[in-house]
């Protein structure tokens, strides 16, 4: 699960990570109060940051024509009027697709005078099954680009999960980031806090980009997490009630949220052939074979091991909500569950949803002959496929007429 920047910063600051002073606001009144607090404390400029999980906010455009989801302002009135151009508006970035995202919260923060931009992230290293700290002196940039073009600039430190991150490891990183003097100890505390957040909150990613050396209150250098991204392991959410409360359904695709209510794992794609499959591996493989025969998959959909009538009906309804869908391929391997039961479920679901798109069904496994007979004798205009390849070819052909 992803959370907003302001929520990530709240978590991080609980673990001793320095973040800029700031306030999440959902109305012009709240923005005014936040701006007054910051400017009256001597802040020169504030930054107004649209809150959305999607990246590319700064270069995004609102549907009302307003440019840029991240803005700097130097007084209260301009801050309020800028925030008003964002709140309740839809921001389109390179990551949102053309639908964009509704901005209902802006983060009003003290803007720092930035002297250096660095990058740091905590993530799982799948090769070692251990936590990994990844840092780079090239902050503010896309880390994938840095890794591709200048891999020598990526600094890595693996953590032994039995002991946790030791201060010496943080110091090593600080020195590798070319920090010196009092910044070494500041960075050590901050890096340890990032790791602690990752571990204790069951995060799958804690990313600070940029991590900045800024001009501190006394003119000396200080280190601050200027931006932050945190995602949490869905499997561990049950033990973090506080983080569960941070879920923002407006950031999720409505059909995917709807699917999750029925224990269906659905991901919408851009193609025209919907698929309904049991098992994640088989579901991916079904998408692949559709493409192999010249079609394009409209979704990933795993109905799990059971494929009951209720689930298949719910799955058809979700699939049919996607206007791009021109045909449907059902691919079920009935292992424990009998194919005749699955066939009954499919027939009932087709009738209930008044399906009128080409439907190709491939059933295999337990009691498959009876299952196929039920499909053929149902009087429904569905097509049966013998193998995955046969079914995929038939569904692709069904829309090429």
């Amino acid at each position, binding site marked *: 699960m992803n959370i907003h920047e302001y929520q990530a910063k709240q978590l991080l600051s609980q673990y001793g990570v320095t973040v800029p002073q700031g306030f999440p606001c959902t109305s012009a009144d709240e923005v005014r109060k936040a701006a007054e607090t910051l400017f009256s404390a001597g802040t020169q400029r504030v930054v107004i940051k649209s809150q959305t999980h999607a990246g590319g906010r700064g270069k995004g455009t609102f549907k009302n024509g307003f440019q840029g989801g991240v803005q700097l302002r130097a007084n209260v009135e301009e801050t309020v009027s800028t925030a008003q151009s964002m709140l309740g508006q839809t921001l389109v970035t390179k990551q949102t697709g053309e639908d964009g995202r509704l901005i209902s919260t802006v983060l009003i923060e003290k803007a720092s005078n930035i002297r250096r931009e660095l990058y740091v992230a905590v993530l799982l290293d799948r090769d070692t099954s251990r936590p990994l700290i990844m840092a780079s002196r090239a902050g503010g940039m896309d880390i994938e680009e840095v890794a591709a073009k200048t891999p020598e600039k990526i600094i890595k430190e693996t953590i032994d999960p039995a002991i946790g991150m030791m201060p010496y490891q943080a110091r090593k990183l600080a020195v590798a980031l070319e920090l010196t003097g009092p910044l070494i100890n500041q960075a050590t505390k901050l890096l340890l806090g990032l790791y602690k957040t990752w571990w204790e909150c069951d995060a799958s990613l804690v990313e600070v980009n940029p991590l900045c050396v800024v001009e501190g209150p006394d003119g000396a250098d200080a280190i601050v997490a200027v931006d932050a991204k945190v995602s949490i392991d869905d499997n561990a959410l049950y033990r973090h009630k506080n983080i569960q409360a941070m879920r923002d359904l407006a950031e999720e695709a409505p059909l995917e949220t709807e699917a999750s209510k029925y224990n269906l794992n659905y991901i919408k794609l851009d193609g025209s052939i919907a698929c309904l499959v049991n098992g994640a*591996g088989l579901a991916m493989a079904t998408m692949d074979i559709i493409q192999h025969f010249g079609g394009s998959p409209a979704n990933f959909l795993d109905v799990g091991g059971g494929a009951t009538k209720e689930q298949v009906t719910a799955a058809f309804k979700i699939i049919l909500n996607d206007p791009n869908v021109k045909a449907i391929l059902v691919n079920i391997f009935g292992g424990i569950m009998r194919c005749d039961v699955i066939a009954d479920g499919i027939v009932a679901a087709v009738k209930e949803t008044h399906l009128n798109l080409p439907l190709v069904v491939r059933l295999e496994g337990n009691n498959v002959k009876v299952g196929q007979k039920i499909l053929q004798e149902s009087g429904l205009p569905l097509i049966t496929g013998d193998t995955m390849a046969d079914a*995929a070819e038939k569904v692709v052909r069904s829309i090429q007429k």
Partner: protein
Amino acid sequence: MSILVHSNTKVLVQGITGSFGGVHAQHSLAYGTQIVAGVTPGKGGQSFNNQVPIFDTVGQAARETGATASAIFVPPAFAADAILEAIDAGLELVVCITEGIPVNDMVRVKRATADSKTRLIGPNCPGVVTPGEGEGSHGGCRIGIAPGYIHKKGNIGVVSRSGTLTYEAVWQLTSRGVGQSTCVGIGGDPVNGSSHLDIIKLFNEDPDTHGIIMIGEIGGAAEEEAAEWIKQHCKKPVAGFIAGATAPPGRRMGHAGAIVSGGKGTAAAKIEAFRQAGIGVADTPSSMADTLLKMM
């Protein structure tokens, strides 16, 4: 022979009184597998279906019945504890079926068991099947949730991260009259016990395995690691399929581990690694068995 388990392997089931564990314990018994004990804390002394004694701890169950392998069906929040208990009891093989275990729990388990002699399969996996000689491969050892009857005793080893895609491969083999030595689902989580490579090494040493089907998917680099080893050391033909060529980057495709992130773990890179290693690449999931059989 076979790998990991054989018809005489004595198996205990952790979580045998849960609905999921109970159903599959029953299926395994019906398949002819020696399910000799169940473990449910607080229910020691009772029995499962008047057939299998239940114990409070894995240690008791192993001592009393001689079980050497465990199937774990306990809920995700308690699964890490259950795995460590089975390892502490000195079992040879622990197969964790449970889906949805927090990643950090598995990071801890993996760290704690780095020096252990116990082999862990899973979690989030369909389990292990060594087919038997009877009707519908009856009499074999079935640990987990795979349908037993689709198997046939024979000489092909199957290893996969996915459940139903494993069944697909097994069924393709069986339908062509070709049997399997052992089929292993290693699970779809980012941190798991045994890797593709661990299982491939066992198949390579097993005299009754003559060919191998390796099924992978997007995410991580376990398939590349296995391919590199196969290129150097594997004595047997290997065919493979990688699922997820059409998956969008940054999205988890059902399995927690099936994600292309930071440009890593793509199907294209894995398929290329397979080709470089001389592994037969199935064009489609429909041709996994045929791709291997052509090589043999």
